[in-house]
């Protein structure tokens, strides 16, 4: 008892006393939990942010970052007047828009279709199979695509010949005009199942009374999709659409790097990210590549802000 009272007496005046530093060090066991993590985040996230300044320098591998001279916007100007600028920007924008136009609605469509399936086993089977590619490395997916499209008795060539549609096998992955189709199809193939999960969850949250009421009013199943299901999940669709706009310039990286290994395809396959990789890592022009990366990041932020502004008008903004 005496011990307890003594303790309380000691604690009450002790709490408010002491400056912020003293209180900080008194809880060293708590601070010790977070400081190693904060330090790692500082090193691996914040130092590279500072490193973006490389874009305004002439980075020299021997001098290091600090001693390399400042050159202002030289590398940005060099990129804008570079002969590659035109096709890199064109490919980035076209591939990004194709991915948005086809890759964005595809999972919504799949979720709507899965929602109409009444056989639980069939539904689970379709889900299990279509979710799987998402969990595979792009290396594996690209390997499968390369094998299926192979000029050397790939399944697609065998099927087309079997149907009498072509006489000679086509080397799909060396013909520029096929590349975008292959790239978008592969992306949808990999992501559509997994992407449908969020929309399925949103559909599951819709009040079933709405459907009953619609049925009594004589609305067909088809009409119910457009009058109830789609409007109900519109807020979720809007949020994902804004995020997709923010990611618009991430037109692709691993997928393009792995599928467009044929140099003949460069004219249609080079996008900002793969170009940064080739210029920066392979050709070691670090400052030039950083400048291109920064240019892309700035446009991405602008796109996100614009998309959010548009969404705010419909009441679905991110922030």
């Amino acid at each position: 008892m005496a011990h307890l009272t003594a303790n309380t007496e000691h604690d009450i005046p002790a709490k408010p006393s002491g400056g912020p530093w003293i209180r900080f060090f008194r809880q060293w066991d708590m601070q010790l939990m977070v400081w190693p993590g904060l330090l790692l985040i500082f090193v691996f996230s914040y130092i590279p942010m500072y490193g973006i300044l490389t874009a305004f320098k002439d980075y020299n591998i021997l001098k290091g970052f600090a001693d390399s001279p400042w050159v202002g916007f030289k590398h940005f100007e060099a990129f804008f007047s570079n002969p590659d600028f035109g096709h890199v920007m064109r490919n980035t924008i076209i591939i990004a828009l194709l991915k948005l136009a086809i890759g964005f609605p595809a999972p919504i469509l799949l979720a709507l279709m899965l929602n109409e399936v009444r056989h639980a086993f069939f539904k689970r089977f379709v889900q299990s199979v279509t979710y799987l590619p998402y969990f595979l490395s792009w290396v594996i997916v690209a390997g499968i695509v390369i094998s299926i499209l192979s000029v050397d008795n790939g399944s697609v060539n065998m099927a087309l010949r079997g149907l009498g549609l072509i006489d000679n096998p086509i080397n799909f992955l060396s013909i520029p005009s096929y590349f975008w189709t292959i790239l978008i199809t592969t992306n949808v193939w990999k992501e559509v199942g997994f992407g449908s999960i969020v929309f399925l969850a949103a559909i599951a949250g819709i009040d079933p009374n709405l459907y009953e009421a619609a049925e009594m009013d004589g609305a067909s199943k088809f009409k119910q999709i457009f009058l109830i299901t789609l409007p109900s999940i519109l807020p979720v669709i809007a949020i994902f659409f804004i995020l997709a706009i923010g990611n618009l310039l991430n037109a692709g990286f691993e997928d393009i790097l792995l599928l467009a290994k044929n140099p003949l395809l460069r004219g249609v396959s080079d996008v900002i990210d793969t170009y940064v990789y080739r210029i920066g890592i392979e050709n070691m022009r670090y400052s030039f590549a950083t400048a291109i990366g920064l240019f892309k990041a700035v446009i991405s932020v602008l796109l996100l802000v614009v998309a959010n502004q548009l969404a705010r008008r419909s009441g679905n903004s991110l922030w």
Partner: protein
Amino acid sequence: MHRLTAGDRTMTIVIYALLSLLTFTTFYPFWNALVISFNAGQDTAMGGVTFWPRAFTLENYDIIFKDNRLLGAFGISVAKTVVGTVASILATAVFSYGMTLPGLIGRKYYMIFCMLTLYFGGGLIPTYLLIRDLHLMNTFLVYIVPVLINVWNMIIFRTFFKGLPEGLQEAAKIDGAGNWGTLFRIVLPLSGPVIATLSLFTAVTQWNEWFYASIYIENVRLLPIQTILRQILNSNIVTENVSALDAGAQAALGKMQKVTSKSLSMAVMMVATLPIVCVYPFVQRHFVKGVLVGSLKE
């Protein structure tokens, strides 16, 4: 049950047909790759191998398991997946628990410090230069240290920890346990589901990662199987491929002669896919929760 109109019946038929087609086009390419990996390479080259192996053989796999470089790459993949996952989950859990403690001075600022990294980053080249300046190139640590703290996982951990009954933690503290003791004896043992979910996701990411290995690692002995597989797929010519094999495997190859680069790469692909297929049922059970927490609850 309600009556279906003719239009509804047509829609149902169309939906079942489309879903069946989608399932087939997802399933077939895997199946075909699996079949080719079990078929004699020279036989595959004659064409017509689709749903079933025509000349069944285990030779493709036999060669892989005789190639020390490929076996070593599998070892690296397993090591980086296991070590990377355990280390990252442990570090992120401790970090996240600290960030939930109500009395932590500076918590609000620490949180902003973390959240900003979700929106801004340095990009490929500045990160690459940093890794080089830290002398992490060509070390095994480059697979582990940069990804120790995952801010997305931190958010999910925090949400989970905050949902735990407070009474238990208070009771532990009254019994004299410190913050660290409470974390390891009370909180973590209660966090089985979230640890399982996040571990599975982290492990799948580690196993699948090939790009950073390809830019940070030059030493072939440190490359994971995905990066080696990419090199194999990139070299179309059989001889080039064979020269990538080590001496023991080349001798075995010389005896067999039935193997082609295609049959071999399909077999490597299947072995690299196997761990994913094994954990897939568990991942599938957990990921709906994970996706929802990650994307909607923020």
